């Protein structure tokens, strides 16, 4: 797919056309452009504030973006399918709340976390069943699930966060521990990105998502089980949302019913910045990860530069629209040149 094209052009560029032409082609790749922007932002930021390039700041920022990042991994696949999952933020909250409530009623925290994971999977399967087999619209279905999961979280907690005292250290480790100085939650996120990026490029199962996202009818006529593919994708987004919920619970040792508020919107924004298209058939996990990093970096910059937090949403929106505009103009010019 596209990413293979990118690799090829890079190889060819190095062989034949020298550095300038190579750079020109590399910039045609969304991932490369994003990477350069992120590096530039970091350099500029480190001049303005000495706090930026400190281990503490970087690791806090990284832990903070890991949650949004894992959700964005699932969202990328949903966007490639030509849909999206609005319920991920709520499912994330629900899984944390389910695990928390079970723990408070005396269940072992690991068992509680497992049950919470199953809950998240179930939410995904229900979305998938209605979208894939019944044929409902993903927007409406996941909007409904968003409300249901959020509502269930409030009902279970009576609206206030549950703090979980005396939780096992082994459980706290996955959200708050470190291995060789690296936060475990970040390592888990990086692992998920690497596995899923590879799988989206290379695995036959996820290749089918591109077919369905590009042309559902043609996919069905070519023998692809469209219902199964759709169900699978929403199962994946639900599962990743639940994993995020459990990691967040471990990090804060608090089950908050309002966790993951508008995480779905941040994830969609990050994926689109990373090159995914709402009309399906396009997108990479690395691209989305870079999108998440860019948004987190900008927020971090605003905090370090003492700009009011209220600017965050405003700037996120501006970046999102700039990315879409960039897409529009590059695609439009290639259309005219056809």
């Amino acid at each position, binding site marked *: 797919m596209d990413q293979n094209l990118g690799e090829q052009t890079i190889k060819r560029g190095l062989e034949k056309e020298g550095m300038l032409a190579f750079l020109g082609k590399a910039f045609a790749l969304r991932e490369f452009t994003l990477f350069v922007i992120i590096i530039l932002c970091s350099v500029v930021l480190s001049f303005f504030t000495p706090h930026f390039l400190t281990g503490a700041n970087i690791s806090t920022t990284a832990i903070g973006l890991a949650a949004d990042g894992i959700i964005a991994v699932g969202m990328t696949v949903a966007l490639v399918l030509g849909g999206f999952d609005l319920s991920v933020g709520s499912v994330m909250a629900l899984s944390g709340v389910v695990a928390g409530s079970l723990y408070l009623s005396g269940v072992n925290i690991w068992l509680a976390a497992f049950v919470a994971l199953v809950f998240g999977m179930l939410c995904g399967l229900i979305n998938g069943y209605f979208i894939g087999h019944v044929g409902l619209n993903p927007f409406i279905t996941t909007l409904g699930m968003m409300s249901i999961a959020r509502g269930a979280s409030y009902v279970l907690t009576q609206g206030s966060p549950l703090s979980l005292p005396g939780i096992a250290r082994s459980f706290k480790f996955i959200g708050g521990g470190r291995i060789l100085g690296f936060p475990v939650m970040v390592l888990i996120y990086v692992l998920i990105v690497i596995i899923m990026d590879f799988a989206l490029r290379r695995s036959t*199962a996820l*290749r089918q998502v*591109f077919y369905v996202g590009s042309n559902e009818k*043609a*996919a*069905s006529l*070519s*023998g692809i*089980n469209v219902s199964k593919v759709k169900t699978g994708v929403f199962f994946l987004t639900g599962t990743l949302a639940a994993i995020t919920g459990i990691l967040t619970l471990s990090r804060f040792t608090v089950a908050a019913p309002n966790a993951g508020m508008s995480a779905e919107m941040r994830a969609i924004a990050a994926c689109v910045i990373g090159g995914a298209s709402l009309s399906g*058939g396009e997108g990479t996990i690395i691209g989305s990860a870079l999108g998440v990093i860019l948004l987190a970096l900008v927020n971090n910059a605003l905090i370090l530069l003492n700009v009011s937090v209220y600017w965050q949403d405003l700037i996120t929106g501006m970046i999102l629209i700039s990315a879409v505009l960039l897409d529009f103009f590059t695609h439009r010019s290639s259309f005219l040149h056809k």
Partner: protein
Amino acid sequence: MEDKVLLRIRNITKIFPGVKALDQVSLQVEVGEVHALVGENGAGKSTLVNIISGVLRPDSGEMTLDQRKYAPANPRESQILGIGFVHQEMALCPHLSIAENVFIGRLPRKLAALADFEKARVETGGLLKKFATDLDPKTKVQELTIANQQIVEIIKALSLDCRLLILDEPTSSLTEAETENLFQIITDLKSRGISILYISHRLSEVFQICDRISVLRDGGLVKTLAVADTSEDEVISQMVGRSIEAFYPAKHPNAGEEILRVEDLSCGKKFQHISFSVRGGEILGLSGLIGAGRSEVARALCGIDRYEKGQVYLDGKKIRFNNSYEAIQSKIAYLTENRKTEGLFLKLAIKTNIVVTSLKTITRRKLVDRGKEESLTRKYIEILRIKTAGLQQKVLNLSGGNQQKVMVAKWLAINPVVLFMDEPTRGIDVGAKTEIHYLMRELCNRGIGIVLISSELPEIIGMCDRVIVMNEGLKTGELVGEEITEENIMRLAAAKKNKIA
């Protein structure tokens, strides 16, 4: 004295990055003439009409309309100056009425700001009557047949006082009767002094309705010929730059064993009591007018749509496919007639498109084996001679003929035993068409049974060893060998109607 020339085009050149789409093209359209524009895909027909209608601007050259300099900056300006363009794909709003579509963007007004629907209706009604249609201006466009939608498009152009009407492949989805009706309308317009620029792949129609023919090849005008002084063969040789001796490959005399047998297949009003068999090594034609139920039968057989009654036997064993996957497992392939909506993954690479039906063969340990993927793709790109810059090229950027070949490639990749081909050469250029025809015969010679559905009679007659004719969901006859003539097919295609009359 009044000049007979309405539109004069002089030395128009248009260059797209890397391609000279039009090279010094000059031609003239006279008042009240039907002027055909023919040429293979990529010859520059679309670019030329896009320049005439103001969608594109030429790099050099000039045009005059009624001896006045004509350089439309956009389609709207060309409309105001009297150029009407009926596109191949309709640009109507399906939820709105005929009258609202005709007056779209310029509804008559009353009381300052309110739209005067009544006036729009009356005026549209007047125009509709001129074409002897009994359509109600209040009917929603989505309820109309494609032929009637086309009439709405023509009326929309006429209501703008158009003097040159551009028709782009107007008959590609019309039935024979609807085509005749359209020709009536064209003759009528002509007698009123309206000029028509007629773009079509179907030369027989061009010869039937047009006065002069301009042939484009590789962006240049080859010649403008008067229909009276030329022949189809001459036009074709001008189009391709070589004469095509035999259009169709030689037929195969002896078909093999029966592979697929269909007995008494019925599905509601779509088709009833259809029985036939497909033998290896033969091309079986499914003929009939559009709407006769030909595609419906094929789609039901291949598991895409349902059927209510009847049996299907593959190699003597009773089977029923519930979806495309099952049909593919039994090596039954259906090449759809809707290339863009059901056939191709336009955003994805050629490679990805071709392997979609062979995911199992190219998978190793759950991963796509890139080596296998590439060798499979290369094999079919060579067999079908697909012209492409690389395996990674998006199908979107290929010509119609090459897109069609990609679709054929994906079905050849499953090694089919029976291949249903629904309008396999619709809207592609003569060269690619001939290549596909030869390929079909070659597949046949290797023992594959092919079922060809086509609305082009010459294609059915030229390609098929046996033809089944349908009308209104019923099989009205079967023709073999020498019996396959235009007359016999047409007689059967109208068979039931005759009985009623």
